[in-house]
Every structure is written in structure tokens, then in C-alpha cells.
């Protein structure tokens, strides 16, 4: 009640001031009239009555002022006056205002921009109703130490049947679909989902129905739900699309199947955060409990906490482990909030940038605080006069803080413009180079506005509090006396200014150290040879429909025709196919046995290496050196003995003391005779950075595409060109399409681009940190320059005296320089110690960074000191030009 009436008073004061003033006036005038009338009734003449009533009431204005104060309006009146006065002061010092506002705008803008990204990626809830109840339910594997594993279909069914914590559980799986019909086949992004999937997300199709229980059974599963986008593209948004059929080939299926469209999802619905799905089809289970392949989502019942669900599924997992020891002995269940599963891993990297921009803001704050401290010397007389006529210390501080918050708000307003621009750039940069979920949702929304406003006010208080404290605490007498002379600035103020400069130099060094270490790591990456010649290579992804190429013969004839057609093009050296492109990140492992060697006694009883599949000419095309033996050639066919090429690491690991060429291994058994199928090693190739420049090569076995191999449906065509590969992209594409139009081509890229994409994360992190560190360094340099030149200006007389007494220009130069260098060195040392504490975090941005690398740290320290030297040299030079005569006369 009381709070309410106070609030009402304030609101009235702010929004309806005129009415309140009018009321007050009317009320008191009515009082005086009534009193006058009463006096006249007692027999006084009207003039006398009026005089008496005026006399006894006293001044109406004084009474009104008392009313304003007792209604709590005084504070707002004073605030208004402070703001008006502050705005006038800022207008009167345009130089100071411009520098301060720009500094703050840059620093706050960087923070707002990073916040806009953090808000979109980490903080916003998922775009589903009651999304905090949505969970990912993972399998765990204690033997492999995996806590977010895909589940097998039977496990998923058992979880779904037994758990009571969840309102529903559903499994899903991405599927690439080929949509046939018309002249060209098209790749579509599919999602196989178990019935109940959409209900868990609390989304219903905008047209038709969702999947029914039972539609996960083979035979009744030929139904499809379209995304709104696909529906509009392919059916023109026609309402009668539901009920029509569509021909789809899933990569795993043998051939195209006819699906009946039963529904269309709403326009804004998408499940994946990176790329929207086109088509949803039912998930058909696999009864094999050993085959983990399904991510599972679930919706918790409204009153069940995550921990309780976890406990329940732990029990179910233990029962399954007992029941099916063969497949489930080491497995368990892990319940994780869906948002956490999506963006949890990004948190560390994004938080580093939050820290970085916060440091930039602190540096900006101390710069502006320093500017204000310098100015406070000029304003001492004004403040002293205010204090002399009765302003309390708190009142003075309030006035100064109002000014600094006002300044910060101007900075914040400009920062919003900058933030819109920076965050646009950030999204383009980050979105292009790595897949950050939800980054495309980054906008300057009300949250960002609120953040910027709060940050601006806080900033204003942070950089304003030191100047306000020191200014308001002056000895009045001293100030009034000294104000007429050139103020020398008290020791206290000077100490604060030094502290601020040392602090910001230290922060700048920390950022510089981080940027330097990242740059060093990036250069190390760039200097790493990938193991092949990356220039003038064109790469194209192919996907071979399983229906068409199930037979080895059809594959062999397609591949041979494709390669010879491409190689016949002008300006092309050679072409080949490979399953996993180097630097691409993906790798598959192959369990194998060496014929003639005993099985390893430890582990699983077989050896494991990564495996890849290549066509003849692959090593030649990539210019991967053959260290011994030969690569695949025309002599290796489906009917000749199977062959393999291994890399140098595999040769060293498995045949440390002998030449592996001619040795035999096996990994498959003949399905009929149960005899091992031997693979003869025909060559040893040089190591290639298969999963990334920063990761060492692992043992690798290459199989021949023209012989029976597993998983052949994905392939990358690599083409060695005579000049810029992208110039030939169209020719290669046309040639490939003419060989077989049913094979979709995707992503034509040069190898340089593949390489650059593979280190995109490192490049972007280095670039961003570099920009912020440069900004920090520039601000710190400006701060140092400001402090040193201010002190030179203050010591003009002292310099004059020194020079009059015989100090040389070199002495003066040394004096000023040493002051700047002392501040810089202190900052450097504090910065180095602080840097040592935080640079370890950089491994979240770049795996191969060396957090304590002495060379990088020395280089950035030297760089910082050079800037410090320069920032102090300019004012030092000015000090040497002081004319002793005029300096003394200045006194």
C-alpha cells in the first residue's frame, strides 16, 4: 500500500506534473479564500481580511515547495536539473564528449553484439511449447567412455514402454532422400521419426494428420509428411496435396518407393537447427540390439524433475544390462535437457568472447574515468562553490554520477547502431564458417535493448564513481584557494589515474597474449603440410543411388566412364574418386587381421585402422607420394585378388621391421565358405592429414573402389586442373551429369577452400580476438597518452625550473619517458601474470594452441612496450620543447 502510493507519487511527478501543480495551487487558494471569508464574517473589511489571511498563511510558494519535497518529488526535480546541467556541460566540451561517447559506443557496442549472439544461441528457449521439459535421452557406453551415444531400436522401445517420467519418447534419424519424378532427381533432406515425435514437440501438422502408431511397421510405413517449404515448392501450396503420392529413395533402400502424403507441417516448424527438413517419413526399426543409431527425444511429465527421470531410466538401463548382457553390459541411459545437448558445447567458446568484450569495456571505462578525472581538476571551483552554498557530498556525487550515466547513455545509444552492424557481421562470419545452431536467429531484439540499457547505466556508474568520489571529497578551502591557480591535482587523483592506466594496460596485454597465442597456433596449422598438393584441385561430392549401383559391375562401369570423360576435358590433368576427402573430418575404422601374424593378445583380438576407399589414380591426382609399391591400377579388377594400400603410419605400426608390400590382411569372411578374404598390400603411401591439419595422421588402409567394398554410396570426385579449379567447375559438372543424370552432384569446391574451411574455426577465433585485442591496445595507448600528456601539462612549471637550472632536453625526455614506461611495465607484469591464468581456456577455441608459449608472449610483450614507448614519447617530446622563460612566467 505504502509502496504503491509512493510509486503513484513518482509516476504523477514524472508523467502528470502539471496536473499536480494545478491541484496544489487550487487547494491552497481555496484555503485562503475560505479563511478570508471567515475573517470577513468576523467583521474585518475585505482588504484587511485578505491581508491577514496572506500574512497568516505565509508564502504559497514555500508551502508548495514543502509539498513537493514531502511527496518525494524533490529527487526527480533535482535529477531533471542535473540532467539538464550535465547535457549543457557535455555540449560545452565537444572534444571530451566525442572521445568519451565514441569510446563507450565501441566498447558497449561490442558487448551488445556478442550478447545478441549469446542470447540467440545459448539463452533463448527452443522454439517449441514448454521446451524446458524437452529432453534428449542418450545411451551411454562406459567401456568407450561415451555419454551421448545413439540408442538401438529395441532399447528405445524398452525405455518407452517402461518409463513413467516421460509423457512420450520418440526416436529420429536424419535421412538423405532422393525425390524422383520429372526429368531430374533431387536430393531432399529427410527426417525419419517414430510416431509421437510431433506430439512430443507439441506441434501439429497445419494440413492433414501426423503419423499414427503402427506406421513404424514395415508395410504401413509408406506415408510422408511434407515441410511447408517443400509443399509450396513442389505442390504450389495446393490443399489437395494431402492424399497424393511422391516417389522417394532413401539411401539405404534398394529402390524408389511410393509414399502417400498424409500431412504438411506449419510454416515455422523445423526440428534441425542447421538446415530445415523437407520431408518426414516414419522410422522403421531394426531389431538388432547391438546397432546403436537413434537419437531419442522425450517430454518430461509436468511435475517430474530431470533428476527423477534420470534415476528411473538408470534403473531401466540396469535391468536391460542384466537382461541382455551381450549387447547392454556396459550401457546405461543419460537424460539431458535438449537445449543443453544442442548448445552446451559452445558455451565455453562463446563465454571466452563474452570475457574478451567485457575486458574491452573495462578498458574503455578506465579511459573515460581518466578523462573525467582530468576534467574534474578544471571543475573543482564549480564543485567547491556548490559545496560552499550547502550541497552535501552525496548530493555532489549524485550530480557527477548523473553526468557520467548520461554520457554512458549517449554512448549506449550509438552502441546500438554499432551493435546492429557488428552482430550482422558476426553472424555472417560465424554462420558461414561453422555450424552454430540458432545463430541465424540473432537480432537486436528487446532483450538486447534491455541489456544495452542496463550495461550503459552500469558502465556510467562504474567509470563515474572514482571521479565522483575524488571530486566530491576535496577539501573545500584548498579548492577555493587553489582554483584560481593552475590546479596541480592532488596526489590521490594522480594515484587513481595511474592505477587505472596500469589496469587497462594489463587487460590489454591479456587480450594481446590471447590473440598472439591463437595467431601462432593458426600459423602453425597453416604451415602444416596436409600430405598432398592442395593447389589446383577441384572437389565435387557425389551420391550414388543404392538402387542403381548395387551391383559392382554398374559401379565400375559408371566410375570408369566418369573418370575417363572428365580426364578427356581440356586443361585437366587427372581425376579420381575417394570416399573420405582429407581434412574433411570424417573417418571410419576397420577391424582386420594380419595373415601370418598372431592376433594381438590385448584388446578385442583384432587390429583396428581407419579405412578409406579410393579409385585408381587417386594418389597420383592428389600427389600423395608412394613410398613403396604401387597404387591401384587397371590391373586390379573385380575378378583379380583384392588389394589395399596403407599409409606410412600403418606401415610403421603394423610392420615395424619389414616391407609391408606383398603382405596380406583380412577383414571379411566369404559369406558362403566362411573363409577369410585376403587383401594384398600393394603399396605404402605418404601420410595425409585426414581429419584436420591440427590432428596427427592415424594408421590408414585404402580399399579399391573397383573391387567389392562396403559403404560405397558416398564419394568425392577430385580433379587436378591446370589452372584455377573453379573456372572448370561448370565443365566438370556438365561432363559428370552427362555420364549419368541420376547421380546428384553437390558442393563444388576447390581444395584450397576445403582446407580453409577445415581451419575456419581457428581462423575466425583468431580474427575476432585479434580485432578485440587491437581495439584494447588502441584504447590502452590512448589512455596512457592521456595520462602522460596531462602530467606533462601539469608539470610545465617544474620542467621550466629544471631546464632553467641546467637540465638538458635529454634529461627531460628521460624523465617523462620513464614515467610512461614505469606505468607500462607495471601493466605488462600484472598482465603477464593474469594472462598465465586464463590462456589455458583458449584450447576451447583451438586445440593445438600452446597456452604458455614464451615466444608468442615475448612478441606481444615487446609489441605492447613499443606502443607504450610511442604513447609516452609524443608528450615527452612536447615537454622538451617547453621554453623555460615562458614556463616560469606561466607561474
Amino acid at each position, binding site marked *: 500500500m505504502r509502496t504503491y502510493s*509512493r510509486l503513484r507519487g513518482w509516476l504523477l511527478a514524472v508523467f502528470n506534473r502539471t496536473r499536480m501543480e494545478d491541484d*496544489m495551487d487550487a487547494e491552497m487558494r481555496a484555503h485562503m479564500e475560505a479563511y478570508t471569508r471567515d475573517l470577513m464574517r468576523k467583521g474585518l473589511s475585505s482588504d484587511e481580511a485578505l491581508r491577514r489571511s496572506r500574512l497568516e*498563511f505565509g508564502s504559497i510558494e514555500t508551502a508548495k515547495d514543502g509539498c513537493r519535497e514531502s511527496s518525494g518529488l524533490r529527487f526527480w526535480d533535482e535529477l531533471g536539473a542535473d540532467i539538464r546541467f550535465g547535457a549543457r556541460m557535455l555540449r560545452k566540451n565537444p572534444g571530451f564528449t566525442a572521445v568519451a561517447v565514441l569510446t563507450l559506443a565501441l566498447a558497449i557496442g561490442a558487448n551488445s553484439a556478442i550478447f545478441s549472439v549469446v542470447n540467440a544461441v545459448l539463452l533463448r528457449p527452443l522454439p517449441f511449447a514448454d521446451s524446458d521439459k524437452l529432453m534428449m535421452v542418450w545411451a551411454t557406453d562406459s567401456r568407450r567412455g561415451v555419454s551421448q551415444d545413439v540408442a538401438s531400436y529395441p532399447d528405445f522401445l524398452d525405455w518407452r514402454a517402461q518409463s513413467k517420467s516421460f509423457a512420450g519418447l520418440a526416436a529420429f534419424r536424419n535421412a538423405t532422400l532422393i525425390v524422383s519424378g520429372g526429368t531430374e532427381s533431387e536430393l531432399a533432406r529427410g527426417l525419419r521419426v517414430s510416431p509421437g515425435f510431433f506430439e512430443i514437440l507439441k506441434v501439429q501438422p497445419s494440413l492433414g494428420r501426423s503419423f499414427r502408431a503402427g506406421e513404424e511397421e514395415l508395410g504401413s510405413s509408406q506415408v510422408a509428411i511434407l515441410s511447408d517449404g517443400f509443399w509450396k515448392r513442389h505442390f504450389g501450396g495446393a490443399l489437395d496435396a494431402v492424399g497424393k503420392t511422391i516417389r522417394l529413395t532413401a539411401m539405404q533402400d534398394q529402390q524408389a518407393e511410393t509414399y502417400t502424403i498424409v500431412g504438411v507441417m506449419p510454416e515455422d516448424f523445423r526440428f534441425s537447427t542447421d538446415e530445415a527438413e523437407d520431408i518426414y517419413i516414419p522410422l522403421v526399426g531394426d531389431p538388432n540390439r547391438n546397432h546403436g543409431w537413434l537419437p531419442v527425444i522425450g517430454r518430461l511429465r509436468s511435475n517430474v524433475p530431470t533428476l527423477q527421470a534420470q534415476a528411473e531410466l538408470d534403473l531401466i538401463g540396469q535391468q536391460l544390462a542384466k537382461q541382455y548382457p551381450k549387447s547392454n553390459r556396459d550401457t546405461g541411459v543419460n537424460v539431458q535437457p535438449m537445449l543443453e545437448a544442442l548448445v552446451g558445447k559452445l558455451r565455453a567458446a562463446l563465454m571466452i568472447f563474452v570475457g574478451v568484450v567485457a575486458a574491452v569495456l573495462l578498458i574503455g571505462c578506465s579511459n573515460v574515468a581518466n578523462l573525467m578525472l582530468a576534467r574534474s581538476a578544471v571543475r573543482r571551483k564549480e564543485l567547491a562553490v556548490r559545496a560552499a552554498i550547502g550541497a552535501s557530498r552525496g548530493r555532489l556525487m549524485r550530480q557527477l554520477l548523473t553526468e557520467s550515466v548520461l554520457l554512458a547513455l549517449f554512448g549506449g545509444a550509438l552502441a546500438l547502431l554499432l551493435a546492429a552492424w557488428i552482430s550482422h557481421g558476426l553472424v555472417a562470419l560465424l554462420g558461414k564458417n561453422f555450424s552454430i545452431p540458432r545463430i541465424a536467429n540473432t537480432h537486436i531484439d528487446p532483450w538486447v535493448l534491455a541489456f544495452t540499457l542496463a550495461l550503459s547505466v552500469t558502465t556510467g556508474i562504474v567509470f563515474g564513481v572514482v571521479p565522483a568520489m575524488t571530486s566530491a571529497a576535496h577539501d573545500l578551502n584548498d579548492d577555493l584557494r587553489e582554483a584560481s591557480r593552475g590546479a596541480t591535482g592532488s596526489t590521490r587523483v594522480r594515484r587513481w589515474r595511474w592505477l587505472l592506466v596500469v589496469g587497462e594496460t594489463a587487460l590489454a596485454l591479456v587480450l594481446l597474449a590471447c590473440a598472439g597465442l591463437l595467431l601462432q597456433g593458426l600459423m602453425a596449422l597453416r604451415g602444416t603440410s596436409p600430405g598432398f598438393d592442395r593447389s589446383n584441385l577441384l572437389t565435387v561430392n557425389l551420391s550414388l543411388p543404392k538402387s542403381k549401383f548395387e551391383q559392382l559391375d554398374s559401379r565400375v562401369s559408371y566410375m570408369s566412364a566418369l573418370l575417363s570423360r572428365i580426364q578427356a576435358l581440356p586443361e585437366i590433368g587427372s581425376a579420381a574418386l575417394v570416399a573420405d576427402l582429407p581434412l574433411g573430418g570424417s573417418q571410419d575404422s576397420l577391424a582386420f587381421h594380419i595373415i601370418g601374424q598372431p592376433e594381438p593378445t590385448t584388446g578385442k583380438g583384432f587390429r583396428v585402422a581407419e579405412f578409406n576407399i579410393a579409385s585408381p589414380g587417386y594418389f597420383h591426382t592428389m600427389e600423395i607420394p608412394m613410398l613403396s609399391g604401387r597404387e591401384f591400377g587397371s590391373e586390379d579388377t573385380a575378378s583379380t585378388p583384392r588389394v589395399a594400400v596403407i599409409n606410412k603410419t600403418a606401415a610403421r605400426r603394423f610392420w615395424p621391421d619389414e616391407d609391408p608390400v606383398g603382405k596380406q590382411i583380412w577383414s571379411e569372411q566369404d559369406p558362403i565358405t566362411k573363409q577369410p578374404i585376403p587383401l594384398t598390400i600393394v603399396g605404402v603411401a605418404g601420410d595425409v592429414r585426414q581429419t584436420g591439419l591440427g590432428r596427427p595422421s592415424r594408421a590408414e588402409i585404402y580399399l579399391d573402389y573397383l573391387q567389392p567394398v562396403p559403404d560405397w554410396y558416398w564419394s568425392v570426385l577430385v580433379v587436378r586442373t591446370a589452372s584455377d579449379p573453379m573456372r572448370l567447375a561448370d565443365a566438370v559438372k556438365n561432363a559428370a551429369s552427362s555420364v549419368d543424370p541420376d547421380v546428384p552432384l553437390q558442393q563444388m569446391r576447390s581444395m584450397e577452400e576445403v582446407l580453409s574451411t577445415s581451419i575456419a574455426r581457428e581462423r575466425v577465433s583468431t580474427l575476432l580476438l585479434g580485432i578485440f585485442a587491437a581495439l584494447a591496445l588502441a584504447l590502452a595507448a590512448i589512455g596512457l597518452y592521456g595520462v602522460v600528456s596531462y602530467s606533462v601539462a601539469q608539470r610545465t612549471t617544474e620542467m621550466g625550473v629544471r631546464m632553467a637550472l641546467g637540465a638538458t632536453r635529454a634529461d627531460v625526455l628521460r624523465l617523462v619517458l620513464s614515467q610512461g614506461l614505469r606505468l607500462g611495465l607495471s601493466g605488462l607484469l600484472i598482465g603477464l601474470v593474469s594472462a598465465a591464468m586464463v590462456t589455458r581456456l583458449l584450447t576451447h577455441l583451438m586445440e593445438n594452441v600452446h597456452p604458455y608459449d614464451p615466444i608468442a608472449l615475448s612478441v606481444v610483450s615487446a609489441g605492447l612496450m613499443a606502443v607504450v614507448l610511442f604513447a609516452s614519447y609524443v608528450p615527452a617530446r612536447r615537454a622538451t620543447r617547453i621554453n623555460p622563460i615562458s614556463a616560469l612566467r606561466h607561474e
Partner: protein
Amino acid sequence: MAKPLDLLQGTLDMLILKAVSLGPLHGYGVLLRIEQISGNRLEIQQGSLYPALYRLEHQGLIASEWGESENKRKAKYYRLTAAGRRQLQTETESWNRMADVIAGILGTSAEEV
């Protein structure tokens, strides 16, 4: 008639609360009511009445609304709120206790010490 007493520091608020507790009043009415109850033995600075009224209203002890005065003029009427009633009660009690104590002290004679 004896010379009216000046108001004791800090008691004006209590008197206003008491005055409006007997029925809603406009500002001038509060003044008349206090003078009437006190038998004109108290002198209230008329101008100082209003800051006190605004303070009490700001504290939520009284509430105001515009109405019509006895001679058909627009006037702002004040009435006691529930919080004001409680406040008046506690202030009355503590005033009475204080008055007792003070009277006791002032009434003490030399023999009683």
C-alpha cells in the same frame, strides 16, 4: 484567553491524523477542526499544514479526492486509510506513555528522590 501554544515539534502529523479520523476534511477544515477540538489553545502555521498533508498522503496514511465543499466549491478532501488508523493508534499510545513518564518526572519532589 491565554496565548495559544506553539505546536510541539513532530506532533502536527499526529493531530492531522486525529482530525481526519473523525471524518473526511479538506485542508482548511483540518485546521478548523484542530483549533476547534483544542479550544483554540493551539496555533498552527497555516502554510505548514500542506507539506504535512502531502507527506502523510505520500506515506499512504491518508488518501485524498476532489469533492464539493459546504459552500459548493471544489475542494480536496482527505480521509484516513487503514494504515493511517493503525499509525494513529500506535502514536497515540506512545504519546500517552511518554506524557505519563514526563509528567511523572516533572511531578517529582525533592523528598521522593
